[in-house]
């Protein structure tokens, strides 16, 4: 039986036929050229993995980079390089949602024919189950990104019984999903584009799946994962490209990710052609050599990111704001930039929002001449604050990650703390557990080194997520407010700024700049520097594209 076609579909098919004819008729075309690059294996290396593979739980830039081609949400950030990468495009939804009810209702229509890597169909039921699962597993952003969904408060109180009644409404037959919010949220589409809103099969267990891969809809799937050894990623056999912008078909057939070794070994492997890319930044001393011997293999890209050292405001001696301020005055941010590889790779900062980020206004109070930028440490003021606090001699442990930059910063901070009269020590923890370890208040971490990469281009993603009361979950591994700061007044101002963004984003950004200053006055963290992304690639890798949110778009690259 021949199906009856609508006039639009006839026209579309005719256009497609013409285009195919054109492609077939003329010399080497774009499609052919791209086809020539298909195949091969990409070999990635990293000093360590980043723990759980569960996209609803993992909150690391290392794995989010992989989720870009493993999983999809209803919408997603465009998978292209450059400024366009900040654009939200329809992904599993066939078009951008219809927004109604004064910005409180989002209605999506799902694409048809999309399958998970296990061969099952992706349906509206999976969408509802996935949103419920975000709360059931108490994902790190459940209380900050998705707490505005109707019914989320009940889910946060009783995760196991989460239904999101009235919050996420599906019509399986029509393939529609309606999400109702308690209040308009101008950042909601950004939040839906994050991997934490990935759509997973409805039968996925409502607990951390750990090293067990969960089927996804992306172009690739994880074949095997051993957090201490390696990850093998292969093509998703059920994948058919539905939108090049949202989920492009990748070039390589397989991606082998190896964990272990050192940054030095990774650089050698790449230079010897044994690996194609390293996740970690090449060591500072090797960069000098590489920047002259292999400049074509190095790609520098600006990052919306922040290296910082959260101070636990609920533990001595950092429960005294003077101690926190003293350390902010004492650190030499120029020296910290040296540890990361110099001014071409990092820019000293003494505020939360990165340069050129929404809401950023140059300001620095923790410097010798307070103003718009950092100039030099003020040890006299720092020493005076420490003396005033009467905390001299207190024991402080700096918890660092086991990589060259983090260890170096930890050792430097220990030296500064010793200068201020504290009994300081450094504790280095493997990268695959450090991030969750420093979040859990049970571990009583006083001072740690961490990084924050923007999930989406909005000030709240730094300030509200890192210092909002909703992000502080004592005793949990997913308490991204590592400092444990919960200032009711600042928190209310942040919520007001988010609400204002729905109607006047420019005014809201001005408020965010003031909130940034207010947070820094409380000094819950040491802003260290804004890094540049350094990607060192082997000579066989081509088509490098950098997205400010997904970083190097691995699936868009090809190998010779």
């Amino acid at each position, binding site marked *: 039986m021949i199906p009856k076609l609508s006039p639009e579909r006839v026209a579309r098919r005719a256009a497609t036929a013409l285009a195919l004819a054109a492609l077939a008729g003329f010399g080497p075309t774009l499609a052919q050229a791209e086809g020539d690059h298909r195949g091969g294996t990409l070999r990635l290396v990293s000093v360590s993995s980043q723990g759980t593979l569960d996209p609803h739980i993992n909150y690391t830039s290392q794995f989010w980079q992989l989720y870009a081609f493993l999983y999809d949400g209803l919408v997603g950030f465009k998978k292209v390089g450059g400024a366009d990468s900040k654009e939200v495009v329809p992904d599993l939804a066939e078009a951008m949602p219809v927004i109604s009810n004064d910005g409180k209702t989002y209605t999506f229509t799902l694409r048809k024919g999309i399958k998970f890597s296990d061969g099952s169909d992706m349906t509206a039921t999976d969408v509802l189950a996935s949103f419920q699962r975000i709360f059931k597993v108490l994902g790190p952003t459940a209380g900050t990104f998705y707490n505005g969904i109707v019914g989320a408060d009940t889910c946060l109180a009783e995760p196991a019984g989460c239904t999101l009644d009235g919050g996420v409404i599906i019509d399986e037959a029509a393939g529609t999903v309606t999400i109702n919010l308690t209040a308009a949220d101008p950042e909601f589409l950004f939040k839906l584009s994050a991997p934490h809103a990935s759509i997973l099969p409805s039968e996925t267990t409502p607990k951390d799946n750990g090293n067990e891969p969960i089927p996804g809809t992306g172009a690739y799937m994880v074949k095997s994962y051993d957090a201490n050894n390696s990850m093998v990623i292969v093509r998703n056999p059920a994948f058919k490209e539905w939108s090049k912008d949202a989920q492009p078909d990748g070039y390589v057939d397989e991606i082998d990710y190896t964990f272990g070794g050192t940054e*030095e070994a990774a650089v050698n492997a790449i230079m010897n052609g044994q690996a194609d890319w390293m996740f970690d930044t090449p060591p*500072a001393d090797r960069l*000098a050599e590489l920047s002259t011997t292999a400049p074509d293999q190095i790609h520098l890209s600006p990052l919306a990111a922040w290296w910082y050292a959260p101070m636990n405001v609920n533990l001595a001696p950092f429960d005294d704001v003077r101690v926190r301020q003293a350390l902010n005055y004492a650190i*030499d941010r120029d020296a910290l930039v040296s540890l990361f590889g110099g*001014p071409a790779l990092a820019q000293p900062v003494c505020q939360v929002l990165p340069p050129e980020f929404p809401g950023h206004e140059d300001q620095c109070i923790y410097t010798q001449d307070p103003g718009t930028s950092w100039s030099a440490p003020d040890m006299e003021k720092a020493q005076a604050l420490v003396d005033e606090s009467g905390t001299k001699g207190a024991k402080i442990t700096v918890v660092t990650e086991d990589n060259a930059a983090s260890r170096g910063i930890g050792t430097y901070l220990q030296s500064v703390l010793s200068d201020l009269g504290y009994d300081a020590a450094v*504790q280095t923890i493997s990268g695959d557990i450090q991030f969750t370890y420093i979040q859990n208040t049970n571990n009583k971490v006083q001072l740690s080194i961490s990084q924050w990469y923007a999930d989406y281009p909005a000030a709240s993603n730094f300030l509200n997520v890192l210092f909002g009361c909703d992000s502080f979950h004592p005793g949990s591994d997913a308490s991204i407010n590592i400092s444990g700061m919960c200032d009711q007044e600042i928190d209310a101002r942040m919520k007001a700024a988010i609400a204002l963004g729905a109607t006047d984003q420019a005014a809201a950004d001005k408020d965010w700049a003031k909130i940034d200053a207010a947070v820094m006055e409380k000094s819950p963290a040491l802003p260290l520097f804004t890094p540049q992304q350094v990607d060192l690639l082997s000579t066989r890798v081509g088509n490098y594209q950098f997205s400010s949110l997904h970083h190097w778009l691995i699936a868009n690259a090809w190998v010779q």
Partner: protein
Amino acid sequence: MSLYESEDPDMTTDLDTPPPAPPAGGDPAPPLGPWRRALRGLASSPAAVLSGLGILLIVLAMALAPAYAKYVAKTDPFRSGLSAKIMIDGTRVPVMQRSTEGLGLGVTPIGPTWGPQYFLGADNQGRDVAARFLYGGQNSLFIAGAATLLCLACAALVGIVAGYAGGAIDAVLSNLIDMIWAFPVYLLAISLSIVMLGKSFDFGPIHLSSSSLILPIVIIGLVYVPYVARPVRGRVIAITNSEFVLAARALGIRPSRILWRHILPNVATTLIVFAPMLMALNIVTESSLSFLSVGVQAPNASWGTILQDGQALLYSRPVVSMAPGIAIMVTVMLLNLFGDVLRDILDPKSVRGR
């Protein structure tokens, strides 16, 4: 080097064995005591003299670390010096040198100046490597030496009690030794270090912070106890069954006196032979643990921690790891050489010992 070489209970000199007969035809020379014989043997051995002097020189050089840091390098080797500058040929040069070539990426610590300051260059925290090398050597030698004494003391106690008491006490102690022996040394040392260094060590009134040098001393000292205790036990069993001890028992001499007068002096030679070799082994163990971040804790230094610092600078500043590497190699070699000569001298079966 294997400690198993010394497991033979008859390896060392029995101090109650009559001295060798005087050469026929001459006047009988007054017999030398075993200790004087050992000292004379050492003095007449060029290898022992050279290795002994070498060890002494290394110890003296390391002891000068504070003076070197204060008066020569004029630096605090435990403070980061990322913004430090030094004068070279009339020009102030930053210790951490930022690249200006190519893409202008990277920062490299200053290399060896071969002058008073930064003689061996700087590490990635801008600290004077030469000063840290001397302080590190001090710590490495101190930890290895103290761990050796601790190990010998514990091994002597366990070996003598087990060997002399016999019966159930021997069975319990021997099985305990075997249990510890069953663990690979490094695995045991790393496990103990992680447990003890992870948080401060608290046991009753004893409190040790993770940066205390006592922790690596105790860990390294304990893991080698079985390797010494077992041969000591064997030696004690042999001595206990010897005629002079049986005679002493028959005469009704108190066990404590027998232990003190007859057994301990005979076991002492076994322990002395072990000492330099054990010290060499302890230097390597300490360096390995510190290299793995489970030994000496920052900001303290040891040759192992400097090796670790140098690992990240292997390509641009190899001297940072070469200096402690060579120091470990030379010290261990000298200790082993000295230990070999000492064993030969105190071993009645060896050519030299006769």
